[in-house]
């Protein structure tokens, strides 16, 4: 079938992109002058430590051998050991990843629920004052830096009113039986609300505008006119036919949004001291913790590329014109 061969070619492309980005990253880290690795290895260590590190990263070998080692380790999921945490990078990164995913999904779900409903509403109110006032406001939220929104929210609701904690993902001294228990605790939620709101404020504009445009377009389609001729209820027309069609690209945008947010949350995570992947990357880069920076970057890339692929997949799953191509 055409559908599955398309899928395979997208998958191959996804793997190709991942490999290329990993290679670019390898080259950046090994070839750039003043690489943090070189800076890190040189001064303070004992010769034995230096040697062991050199061996760990294969610096005693040719660049090509180093590259093979790098790719080989990557394929085995071995990202090395963090200089700072003295623990395997994979492990360190995963905790941060959970926090980032919680923040990303939380804000995206809020943003897309709100955006889709408001977008449909704006489409309905086309040409009214609601639209004339609403659209510029939406554009302003799209233009505001999300970390600045975060700062304002922090100043008002945390420091001013004292309703929410000023940062972090959990209160000090709390302990949980498991990672799941931690993420689904009330304490975590209280910490999550402000950063998720800041992000959601910024993110809702895209689904809103998309939904509005799509609704306006779909409402012009012949099948919507036909649905009215069939005497179907307004509800059936708007929800079952118009919204179902208009939601196609929004679903894709949602998947793309996950991929972009995991890396794009960096600044909001910094503002709220949220122990996520982006902030870990910033700290690792600042502290020249090279394996950790590399690991965090690779994980962010993997999520981005995977979600690009998922978005594609989702689109073909939701749109029968692609999912059921052929067979005439």
């Amino acid at each position, binding site marked *: 079938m055409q559908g599955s061969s398309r899928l395979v070619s997208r998958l191959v492309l996804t793997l190709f992109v991942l490999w290329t980005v990993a290679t670019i990253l390898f080259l950046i880290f090994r070839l750039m002058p003043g690489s943090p690795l070189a800076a890190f290895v040189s001064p303070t260590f004992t010769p034995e430590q230096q040697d062991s590190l050199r061996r760990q990263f294969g610096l005693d070998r040719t660049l090509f051998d180093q590259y093979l080692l790098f790719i080989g380790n990557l394929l085995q999921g071995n990202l090395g050991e963090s200089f700072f945490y003295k623990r395997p990078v994979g492990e360190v990164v995963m905790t941060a990843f959970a926090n980032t995913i919680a923040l990303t999904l939380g804000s995206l779900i809020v943003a897309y629920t709100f955006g889709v409903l408001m977008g449909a509403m704006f489409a309905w109110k086309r040409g009214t004052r609601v639209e004339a006032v609403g659209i510029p406001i939406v554009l302003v939220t799209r233009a505001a830096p999300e970390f600045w929104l975060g700062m304002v929210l922090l100043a008002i609701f945390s420091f001013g009113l004292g309703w929410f904690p000023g940062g972090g993902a959990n209160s000090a001294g709390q302990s949980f039986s498991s990672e799941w228990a931690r993420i689904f605790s009330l304490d975590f939620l209280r910490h999550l609300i402000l950063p998720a709101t800041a992000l959601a404020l910024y993110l809702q504009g895209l689904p809103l505008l998309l939904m509005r445009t799509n609704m306006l377009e779909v409402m012009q389609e012949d099948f919507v006119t036909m649905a009215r001729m069939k005497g179907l209820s307004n509800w059936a027309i708007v929800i079952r036919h118009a919204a179902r069609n208009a939601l196609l690209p929004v679903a894709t945008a949602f998947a793309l949004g996950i991929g972009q947010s995991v890396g794009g949350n960096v600044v909001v995570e910094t503002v709220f001291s949220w122990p996520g992947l982006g902030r870990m990357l910033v700290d690792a880069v600042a502290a020249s913790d090279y394996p950790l920076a590399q690991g965090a970057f690779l994980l962010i890339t993997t999520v981005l590329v995977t979600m690009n692929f998922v978005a594609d997949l989702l689109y073909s799953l939701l749109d029968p*014109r692609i999912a059921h191509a052929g067979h005439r």
Partner: protein
Amino acid sequence: MSVLSVQDLEVYYKTDRGVAQAVRGASFEVPEGQVVGVVGESGCGKTTLARAIIGVMPKTARIAGGRLMFQGVDLLGLSPREMASRRWRDIAFIPQSAMNSLDPVYRVGTQMAEVLVERGGMDKRAARRRAAELFDMVGLDPGRLRDFPHQYSGGMRQRAAIALALALEPRLVIADEPVTALDVIIQRQVLDTFKELQGRLGLSVILITHDISVVAYASDRVVVMYAGEVIESGATAEVLGRPFHPYTMGLCKAFPELHGGGGTLVPIEGSPPDLIAPPEGCSFADRCPFVEPECRTARPPLVDVASGSLAACRRTSEAEELRVLAGEAGTWLRS
């Protein structure tokens, strides 16, 4: 006995330049169990007329006058709710482009079931059975109910649209250019199926088309529209065989296959009048080869011309001679 009687219908559109009078005082009857072909150039108001009858019009359109008597009830006097409940059960619609009229994200069977369940009050199983029955009727494999619209060919989609229109056994079916999008061979096949079903079920049909050969082939009566007006109507054989309005004469001339490939194909030159400021006199005057100065002073009314035929022309008494002149290609060429 008429199923539908259109009386002095006026439909206006709001446009950027002003109000366009898309349908101007149109009147005709749809007798029980007959096919009435409504024919005219694009922009003559025939689609507007169709949409006005089923009551689904663009926001800019407004019915400015007239009556639509459907089995003794004026449809224009119904509340939106009452009208919605009559749609599809009493009056169904076959659209020009079934591709865009079927929702691309649902299987055709689902869309059939939607109408049967939601408007026909059937349960799901009965709906499924009925859908298969309908597909059988229109010459489609019921197995294809599971397919999506894009998996159909153009002819199949049009057949599916017919099945959909017949789903609730409506009293009146409006078919808006039902075969225009198809190539000629498929056109004939779909039209044959449609005609056969119409005869078998005794359907009353309004068949809207710009193609006079489709009218000649499939309709019992014909209504010729020009610039929003009905300018001639009557039994198909009468009107096409003995046209009384010069525009009808020209139309017949422009479609030579009516006469078995006789004369040369001559289009009517010029374009219809501006409906925002329609002329005071006969709206065809500017293009009419037989125009006289008096034609421009007042709109000619529809008058009886032959057995059951009506025509809106000042010179119907001279129709005999005009028809001869109209048969010559030179008549239609501008000097």
